[in-house]
């Protein structure tokens, strides 16, 4: 589904990603861990097509297409979803209005008709339950005045409604209390399917108790320095990052 080869990217002329290689197959869940500032969000942003992230080398193939050639909205419509580390507030725009516009944009791209109001509401209500959110959140402005945890749950709600093929979750667990963490993890697990792949960025092994990954990667200094199965996360928890990053070559050095 996703094939990243020697991906290099800079922000404002500063190289951040220094040759990432990653293969993700449909149905798999990959976890990416790594120290602050190592480039995890940068990777997610590059995959989602954010402006200002300049790809300086390598390639990304998604479902047979050159992902990097697509505009951000085209990637979204092709099924790439990014749950933001810092979800953005959009004053005056209700959550449900955005959900509807987004779903219809994606459906249109896939040659489907717009959902009528009733079917849409039925779908939304069902997915609200999945993330245990109250219906009133639908009528509030997107993320405005939401608590940190509510914002993260809202990201998962959007994901559950848009049903992406490739979900990138950037620290969706950060800032969640234990109950919310379980709710979010349940939501994510409910969406696991043989057609869907997920890349989960996290700092905490704890999340991986709930969302059990097929692969765990450690990103440091813009490179994947170690990959393994779920036991790698446990090892990192015990030993910290030093043991995997110490002997990793620093590209800038």
């Amino acid at each position: 589904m996703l094939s990243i080869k020697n991906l290099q990217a800079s922000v404002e002329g500063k190289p951040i990603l220094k040759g990432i290689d990653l293969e993700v197959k449909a149905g798999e869940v990959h976890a990416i861990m790594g120290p602050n500032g190592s480039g995890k969000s940068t990777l997610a942003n590059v995959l989602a097509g954010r402006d200002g992230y300049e790809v300086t080398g390598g390639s990304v193939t998604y479902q047979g297409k050159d992902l990097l050639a697509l505009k951000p909205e085209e990637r979204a419509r092709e099924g790439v979803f990014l749950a933001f580390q810092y979800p953005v507030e959009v004053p005056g725009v209700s959550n449900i209005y955005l959900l509807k516009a987004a779903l219809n944009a994606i459906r249109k791209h896939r040659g489907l008709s717009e959902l009528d109001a009733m079917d849409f509401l039925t779908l939304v209500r069902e997915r609200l339950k999945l993330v245990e959110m109250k219906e009133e959140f639908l009528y509030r402005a997107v993320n405005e005045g939401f608590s940190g945890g509510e914002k993260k749950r809202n990201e998962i709600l959007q994901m559950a409604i848009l049903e992406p093929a490739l979900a990138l979750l950037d620290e969706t667990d950060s800032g969640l209390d234990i109950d919310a963490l379980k709710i979010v993890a349940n939501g994510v697990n409910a969406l696991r399917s043989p057609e869907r792949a997920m890349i989960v960025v996290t700092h905490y092994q704890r999340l991986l108790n709930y969302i059990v990954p097929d692969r765990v990667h450690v990103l440091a200094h813009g490179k994947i320095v170690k990959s393994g199965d779920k036991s790698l996360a446990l090892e990192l928890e015990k030993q910290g990052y030093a043991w995997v990053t110490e002997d990793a070559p620093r590209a800038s050095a």
Partner: protein
Amino acid sequence: MASSKQNIEALIKRDYQAGFVTDVEQESLPPGLNEDVVRALSAKKNEPAFMLAWRLQAYRHWLTMTEPKWAHVRYAPVDYQAISYYSAPKSKKDAPKSLDEVDPKLLETYEKLGIPLKERELLAGVAVDAVFDSVSVATTFKDKLAAMGIIFCSFSEAVHNHPELVQKYLGTVVPYTDNFFATLNSAVFSDGSFVYVPKGVRCPMELSTYFRINASKTGQFERTLIIADEGATVSYLEGCTAPMRDENQLHAAVVELVALKGATIKYSTVQNWYPGDVEGRGGIYNFVTKRGACRGDSAKISWTQVETGSAITWKYPSVLLEGDNSVGEFYSVALANNRQQADTGTKMIHIGKNTRSTIVSKGISAGRGQNAYRGLVKVLKGAENARNYTQCDSLLMGDKCGAHTFPYIEVKNPTAKVEHEATTSRIGDDQLFYLQQRGLSAEDAVSMIVNGFCKEVFKELPMEFAVEAQKLLGVSLEGAVG
């Protein structure tokens, strides 16, 4: 991030969609202004003596005045002698008696503007009074309204058929001495709309007028007078467009509202005059005086405006809160794109006790547009317990535009409470990216952010107008991010 700045610049380009010219034979007075022109104008309209006398008074006063310079706008001086003060589509008879008699080309114009009169009349139940250049061409639904005692007609007709009402109220809210442009209007106004809603009557439909400046080198000086008698309620909509021309055209209108005891007048405007091109060539000078008087206890006047057009807008719909417990409201969205300049706001004059006013102003600046909010909240000595709440928000797109706020507050009564809040924000790259990441095109994303910003104002508009306003903003910002 440099690249996204360019993107926002690119999104701000736009095309004017109402910029066509209708080829209809026009009957005009030659350009120029003197007493003879004022007399000729009045004679053409067959006006009673009191109207001519009033016009002449105004004209003579105008000669003593100079153009105001205080607004935050710049423009080349207007040559008042180069303007034609009367221009009307030539028609076989004096005035069309029904839509069937209206020149089909005119009807076509309205079709293009998206206001098919017939359709509105038949389907939408909106009574439309359409002003084409200077003469009202068709007033629909008159009969149905007349049965309730509601008068809705062109100003000229009102002068002939209801001179006592015109004489009683004309100039009582905006006197002919008021300001340079209002005084000019008083001397040369050509036509406009007139509404009278009798005591206790709730007007059953939205009354609506569309103005369109078609002929070149003409000024449009329309005059609207709306009177809601005691306990009456009326909602009035005004929409405006003009064709694209290289030269600037002057639009100096006056609107007077009178709400008597317990009456409510809601006046909504969607203004889409030609704004000029990207370089600032052409476009309408929109110098308008709009004012309402709450002339009785518990009267209410509410202005809602969406201003997306005009090269220059100079407009302060105001409310004189004379009656005790009267209420004034001003909800405004003003967009200044490319080289547009908007200086707009309101005046709320608290005179009676327990008077309340609310001001919500949303200014959007894009391209090299300059947007200024200018507001005055004045609480006079006798206005015990007056309340004002002002909220003034600016949204900037790109870094070559400007937003300015000039709030003036004068309070002469210590029991008054006046609150003012102001914010300035920029459409953020992060907001754009967030919405694009959810599948929206950049343009839809901008449109969504802008509409969200304007929501508090849009919700004050009548339903169908709100939809139109949203579309208009979308079109106006088309091309604003790539």
